[in-house]
């Protein structure tokens, strides 16, 4: 019989909120599931093994460490979510020990060395991903051909759109209208689905309005591109995001400032590397490629590793958008979302400290003077 439960003494404010850690974590997991099922459908059963491997290692690591510290936290969903996100951030054909090591690193080093959930100042899943990315860069950038796409080279692996562009632009001197045209000129395949859907949209919606959509965006939006298992389908991730917004688990500040700053910079400077002028960047392409949607809505908004105040969140999102732009366009890696977010994670304590709201009745410059 535990008497402390019977007589609970708390300090004010004594407001009860129905959300618990477990409820929030499991809700996020549910919102992520459709994108994962789609990823497994596109890339085959190997992708499912990758996700299972990362989740199981995350749960086992969590269980062992919590046991050593005489706590029990496996069922609060946070380790499951970390494992799931690690799995979603893996290429489908990766050897199974890599997601396992990423999860172990995430849970053991990034989370529990600082005292468990709530004290981890860096997003565990992203840190785990970045850790294995730098350790096994070859395996981590080896993309499988998704269902619906056919390539002429070897039929098993192909470059991701961002990787293809980064490699192609390395010694590029001509001009190209933009990333979609650049991919097309390089012989990058499109699915039959993309062609029919684009045709349908053009003939029935856009052409009467005097506009037209180029082929390729539908593939990006639906996720019929090589990429990490859970990041490819922008559509299903956005559907999950709507639910998270309805449930008020994520707030608008970080996604909006992140996408705004990133989109603005891409629009202004993104065209320069195709040797076009300013203000010609392809924002839509950059929004739906790589891990941006997954990163912006599911990982940058992590409650533990993002700032507490509205102003702080706006700064955080803007910084992450700027860093993503910088790495994607000028860095040596094709994709920068995970690096950008963990780079901003390290500033969160400082952002919190300097955006702290002033207490009521105290002048901003340390009153009483």
């Amino acid at each position, binding site marked *: 019989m535990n008497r402390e439960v019977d007589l609970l003494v708390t300090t004010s404010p004594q407001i009860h909120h129905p959300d618990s850690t477990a409820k929030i974590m499991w809700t996020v997991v549910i919102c992520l599931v459709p994108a994962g099922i789609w990823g497994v459908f596109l890339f085959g059963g190997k992708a499912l093994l990758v996700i299972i491997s990362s989740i199981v290692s995350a749960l086992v690591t969590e269980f062992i460490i919590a046991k050593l510290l005489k706590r029990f936290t496996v069922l609060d969903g946070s380790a499951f979510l970390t494992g799931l996100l690690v799995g979603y951030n893996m290429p489908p054909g990766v050897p199974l020990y890599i997601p396992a090591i990423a999860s172990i690193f995430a849970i053991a080093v990034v989370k529990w060395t600082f*005292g468990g959930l709530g004290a981890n*100042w860096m997003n565990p899943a992203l840190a785990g991903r970045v850790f294995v990315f730098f350790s096994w860069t070859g395996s981590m950038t080896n993309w499988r051909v998704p269902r619906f796409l056919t390539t002429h080279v070897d039929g098993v692996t192909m470059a991701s759109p961002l990787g293809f562009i980064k490699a192609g632009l390395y010694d590029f001197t001509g001009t190209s209208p933009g990333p979609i045209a650049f991919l097309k000129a390089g012989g990058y395949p499109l699915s039959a689905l993309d062609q029919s859907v684009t045709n349908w949209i053009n003939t029935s919606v856009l052409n009467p309005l005097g506009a037209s959509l180029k082929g390729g965006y539908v593939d990006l939006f639906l996720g019929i591109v090589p990429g990490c298992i859970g990041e490819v389908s922008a559509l299903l991730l956005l559907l999950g995001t709507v639910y998270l917004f309805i449930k008020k688990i994520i707030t608008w500040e970080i996604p909006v400032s992140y996408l705004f700053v990133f989109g603005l910079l891409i629009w202004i400077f993104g065209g320069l590397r195709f040797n076009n002028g300013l203000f010609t960047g392809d924002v839509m392409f950059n929004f739906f490629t790589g891990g941006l949607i997954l990163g912006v809505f599911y990982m940058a908004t992590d409650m533990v590793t993002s700032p507490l105040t509205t102003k702080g969140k706006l700064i955080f999102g803007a910084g992450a958008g700027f860093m993503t732009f*910088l790495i994607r366009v000028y860095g040596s890696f094709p994709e*920068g979302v995970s*690096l950008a977010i963990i780079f901003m*994670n390290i500033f969160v304590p400082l952002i919190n400290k300097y955006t702290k709201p002033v207490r009521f009745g105290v002048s901003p410059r340390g009153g009483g003077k």
Partner: protein
Amino acid sequence: MELVLIFLSASLVNNFVLSCFLGICPFLGVSGKIESAVSMGFAVTFVMTLTAGITWFINRYILIALGVPFLEYVSFIIVIASLVQFVEMLIRKISKPLYDSLCIYLPLITTNCAILGLALFGFLREYSFIENMVFGTGAGIGFTLALVIMAGIREELELADVPHVLRGPAISLIIAGLLALAFMGFAGLISA
């Protein structure tokens, strides 16, 4: 533009602490509080900028002119040590409060390998005088940035339930490792 690139390269891309792993001792030692981290950072920035300027002259007009570049380590260390001593006396004379707030950190700068590293890097990369000064300032600002980030995280972790065995230097080194991981995103942004 060249100068801006040198500055950004020294402060962010090739951050002395988090990419070159120089100057780790003050990075771990003086990063407990943000205020002292800022003071230490500015003291180091000041010394670094001066060192960059003076070692450039010594290198160009003494070591190379006399054909004794092998003396660079000895001469640079002497220069840095006396420079720190000089700065210490100067600050004590000009501003006593600043001197009191820096107290032990000033002499500590003498043994900061980041400063010797700075002098040697500038020598290797054959910077001009202005470039070397900008390089020194950038390296100092980057050092300050790393120190302040570290201090922010450590202040936050004071309230965290860090496992007993990891408290102290162990957790600081783990934080430093994760910070270095985050800074790897800059790789390749600016070469050299």
